């Protein structure tokens, strides 16, 4: 029998909080099995060992915020057979994309005494703005079971089963009482992609959109409902402008309420 080469997995970090790659280490029950199934070739948060590319699968966390980032992601793309972005930073620019709505120099001078020491781009942008991406896994942070599904699907040559429907569908499936209907609490669930595990509505909290826009979201209609529930324009703007502020439908809707 011919020995089968283990697929080489690399985990890359750009501008981010590390929470999404931590989700891989948080698969406590599965981590050693994953490590048996793949060769962890590059994962700086977990290991000193580094294996040279090419890589079968690259998981990319974080957004592009420096000129060096652009050079680095292009190099990673060239070395990767399959490139998957994980989390809101990599798929939409993350919370740091709030800078896209302001002048970045104002941000630097607000935080740093010596602005000239800081090298940064004016915007925080998702990975797919710079290189082709094979699959985007949403969430701030990602759901670890969805991550395992994506890695498993790739290793077995099938498409990952990751639903693109709205959070509302998840609430109905779980029998969770609608916070907007029952409490009048403005909720982003109707326009937000499911996948978190029905978290916020289960604790009587409105969905705050951390999985980003679902397919074809009607944000304008939902914003109208928010107005009817007494939410003023600055609050509607800020509601759409958080962890997925850079995702096109949310960006557009937030700018409609400037």
């Amino acid at each position, binding site marked *: 029998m011919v020995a089968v080469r283990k697929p080489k997995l690399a985990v890359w*970090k750009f*501008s*981010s*909080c*590390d*929470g*999404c790659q*931590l989700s891989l*280490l*948080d698969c*406590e*029950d599965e*981590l*050693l099995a994953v*490590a048996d199934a793949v060769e962890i070739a590059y994962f*700086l*948060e*977990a*290991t*000193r*060992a*580094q294996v040279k590319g090419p890589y079968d699968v690259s998981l990319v966390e974080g957004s592009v*915020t*420096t000129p060096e*980032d652009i050079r680095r992601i292009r190099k990673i793309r060239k070395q990767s057979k399959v490139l998957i972005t994980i989390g809101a930073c990599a798929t939409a620019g*993350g*919370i*740091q994309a*709030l*800078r896209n709505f*302001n002048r*970045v120099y*104002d*941000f*630097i001078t*607000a*935080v*740093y*005494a*010596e602005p000239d*020491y*800081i090298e*940064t781009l004016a915007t*925080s942008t998702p990975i797919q703005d710079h290189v082709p991406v094979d699959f985007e896994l949403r969430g*701030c*942070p990602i759901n670890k079971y969805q991550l395992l599904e994506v890695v498993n699907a790739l290793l077995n040559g099938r498409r990952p089963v990751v639903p693109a429907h709205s959070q509302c569908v998840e609430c109905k499936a779980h029998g969770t009482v609608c916070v907007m209907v029952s409490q009048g609490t403005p909720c982003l669930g109707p326009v937000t992609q499911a996948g*978190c*595990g029905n*978290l*916020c509505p*289960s*604790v*009587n*909290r409105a969905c*705050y959109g*951390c999985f980003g826009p679902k397919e074809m979201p009607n944000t304008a209609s939902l914003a109208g409902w928010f107005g009817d529930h007494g939410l003023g324009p600055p*609050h509607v703007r*800020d509601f759409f402008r*958080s*962890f997925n502020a850079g995702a096109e439908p949310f960006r557009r809707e937030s700018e409609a309420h400037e």
Partner: protein
Amino acid sequence: MSDATAAGASGIAKTIKVDALARVEGEGALYVRIKDGAVKDIKFRIFEPPRFFEALLRGRMFSDAPDITARICGICPVAYIMGASHAMEDALGVMPSPAIGDLRRLLYCGEWIESHVLHAAMLHAPDFLGLDDALQLAKSNRAVVEKALALKKLGNDILEVIGGRAVHPVNTRVGGFYKAPAPAAVAALADRLRWGADAAQDLALLFGGFDFPDYEYDYTCVSLRHPDVYAIEAGRLVSNRGLDIALAEFFDHFGELHVAHSNALHGVMTDGSGPYLVGPIARYNNNYAQLSERARDVAKQAGLGPVCNNPYRSIVVRMVETLYACEEALRLAEAYEPPAPPAADVVPGPGKGYGCTEAPRGICFHHYVLDAEGRIVTATIVPPTAQNQPQIERDLLGVVEANMGMADDDLKWRCEQTIRNYDPCISCATHFLDLRVERD
């Protein structure tokens, strides 16, 4: 991405660099230049790109701060959620009930367990065994790694039961919680926490048997201190040099310095007394007497006295604190009654407030000013790794000076290990690491 070059047969002059430090959270580098047997330059760089949290918070409602600042760090989001919440409550005159305070402490114990075990067992322990990572350790001693993973999972499960999610919890808000967790779900943690205390004890004793490099430093230890308990989520700011201040006096004693080689602002004491230490060793040295009898007993068996000045032994202190966190979480879980209401009422308005908690890596300080509507005018966040950065550089200097004869690769690894003593969260300090030692 590291290299070491020795110029000249004598190795008198050389540079050691680590361009991208592994097994830390975030990105950083180290540069050391040695000439004529003396260290000429040490720079511990943080090149994690800046994300400008303090700027992007401006204009947002006070209620947004906990969830937004949580995204500073995926390993210790509770530290940010809690610090921001306390600061907002201070600004708006909100006093959450003692039951809400207890539930917050229970949640925070979950973060200490999860973060400490991740660092000590998965990231730091391989240094003492000459291994690249915990997966290699799993090949030689799978049972230890499995025990550590199960303990880490217990921490995460506390975060899920109380906070709704392990990374970036959703059930927390200014004033308290959205929903009080069901008593049955909290009660179900109790047996696992009894197991957790035993597991933490086993790991503390195992790590206590490591061969620790011979290095000590007379640290200025800064931590919180609470009158009744080992400080985690609340207290006054104290040091082992006699400092004892309210949070509002922070800026009278501490400042931040922006240096060219780092995107993290350096924490400094305004009296010019030099670097200071925050984190497990600082807490242990300042508040040892408030640890449980069992935690102190295990500390002694694991080779620790009441004061620890060897930074490599921080791995043992972390496990002693993990043991304490399991005991404390058990106490809180057994006494749990759902707070009613789950959150105190909060009326938006103007104000200024301070919040500080003991993140796993050390004190994490928040200060906000709010306008009449309750929107953030200014935000100042001083994370633990930024405060430790000057002390890390000072330790590196001492370690390199004491080990000048060591082969470059060994010295490089020793330097990396020295930095990992601090469990540096580089993501949070940016506002971390690549090692270069230059001998010329």
